[in-house]
């Protein structure tokens, strides 16, 4: 637990000092959004209808950059092996990194939401509390397996091509649920389905935060 907080604090501090990565990721998310808008064309109905999809695809693409960069810090100059020699528990390290990644994704998401509202002319029909919850659970769902796999990729000396490929199958339930929930919040939810989607997101998170924490030790000790 203490390890987790320490690692988390370290990552937050590192990022706070320069904020360069956050700025880069926000610019990237913004660019993706604009590209989607241009690709769809001036069809305002289509943009409004699929605003949720663009939000989450932007977040997903940003996350691959984030995850890679975040884990690379740990492996530079063999830092991680020294970290583990000190009595730093591997699960503690995992949860610290994963929570830091989640927070970073929340920040990108929080800034992306108003961007999406403007670019797609979208509004919130249902309560925005649902939107906040969706963002929280979706980001966490991307961060947990992402952190595990980014550590695996970092060990393979820079095979970045594999990371999106490895994440893709895991990310489908998150994207499907998050986009559905977001779209329902933005377009109205006459049949009260948001709850079911959030429940699926919650289940996914419970399974993967648990599983990845357990497996992380094996990934970094090898």
């Amino acid at each position, binding site marked *: 637990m203490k390890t987790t907080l320490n690692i988390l604090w370290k990552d937050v501090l590192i990022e706070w000092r320069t904020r360069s990565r956050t700025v880069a990721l926000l610019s990237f998310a913004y660019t993706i959004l604009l590209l989607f808008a241009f690709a769809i064309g001036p069809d305002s109905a289509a943009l409004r209808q699929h605003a949720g999809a663009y939000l989450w695809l932007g977040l997903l693409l940003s996350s691959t950059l984030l995850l890679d960069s975040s884990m690379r810090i740990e492996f530079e100059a063999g830092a991680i092996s020294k970290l583990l020699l000190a009595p730093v528990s591997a699960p503690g390290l995992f949860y610290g990194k994963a929570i830091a990644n989640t927070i970073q994704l929340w920040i990108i998401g929080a800034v992306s939401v108003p961007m999406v509202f403007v670019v797609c002319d979208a509004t919130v029909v249902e309560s925005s509390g649902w939107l906040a919850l969706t963002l929280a659970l979706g980001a966490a769902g991307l961060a947990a397996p992402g952190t595990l796999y980014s550590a695996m990729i970092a060990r393979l000396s820079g095979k970045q091509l*594999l990371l999106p490929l490895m994440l893709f199958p895991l990310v489908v339930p998150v994207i499907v649920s998050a986009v559905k929930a977001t779209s329902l919040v933005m377009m109205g939810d006459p049949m009260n389905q948001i709850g079911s989607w959030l429940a699926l997101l919650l289940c996914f998170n419970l399974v993967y935060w648990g599983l990845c924490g357990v497996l992380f030790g094996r990934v970094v000790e090898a």
Partner: protein
Amino acid sequence: MKANWEIGVGLFGLILLIWAHYTGLFVAPPEAMMGDVGRILYAHVPTAWVGLSTYLVAFIAAVGAIWSGKWAWDAMVEASVEVGLLLNALLLIQGSLWAKPTWGVYWTWDPRLTTCAIMVVAFGVVLALRRQIEEPMRRLTMSSIATIIAFVNVPIVYLSVKWWRTLHQPYSSPETVDSAMVTPLRVAAFGMLFLATGFVVRRWRQVHRQLKAEVQAPDLPDAPSPLAVED
């Protein structure tokens, strides 16, 4: 080629499958709704059952590999993921070809077909990892982890796609099978199972041999002859 038990099992499976497919194609009646197209059943359903079972074997082997660190388990991960991928790819093609005459389109976001497509990537990644990593122990660990996660993911993906789909439009697929069709179906399933077992075990032997050779220490040089004592 050594004649081990799996050759016999595989051949037996082959015979069963040939009988079952012959019967299914030419003897069994056409399906009530799908007509002759329904005969695809005898190829598609066994592939699905055995494919999923093979992935289950891969999952168990991956857990065993991480637990024990033994090469035998690691070899089983590779063998079963490989055969599982073969069946998975076949399943995808069969499903798509079945969809065209029955639903009118080759692809339709049906939960099962979609999950199938995603599984190919998830388990393909396991093999890709195995090709990339040269250090044997690291290869064992990483590919086992990827296998465990891929397998755990299957029900979650299936559920999420199913909900996603049924909220749009309900889809129908044949759930009950006519009694005249049960026998060739069952025989085909066993045939496929035995054939796949033959494949997996055979492949396991090959991989196991390779892994053992990889980690074996090189032969020691011959002992030097004792120094001759100068007289």
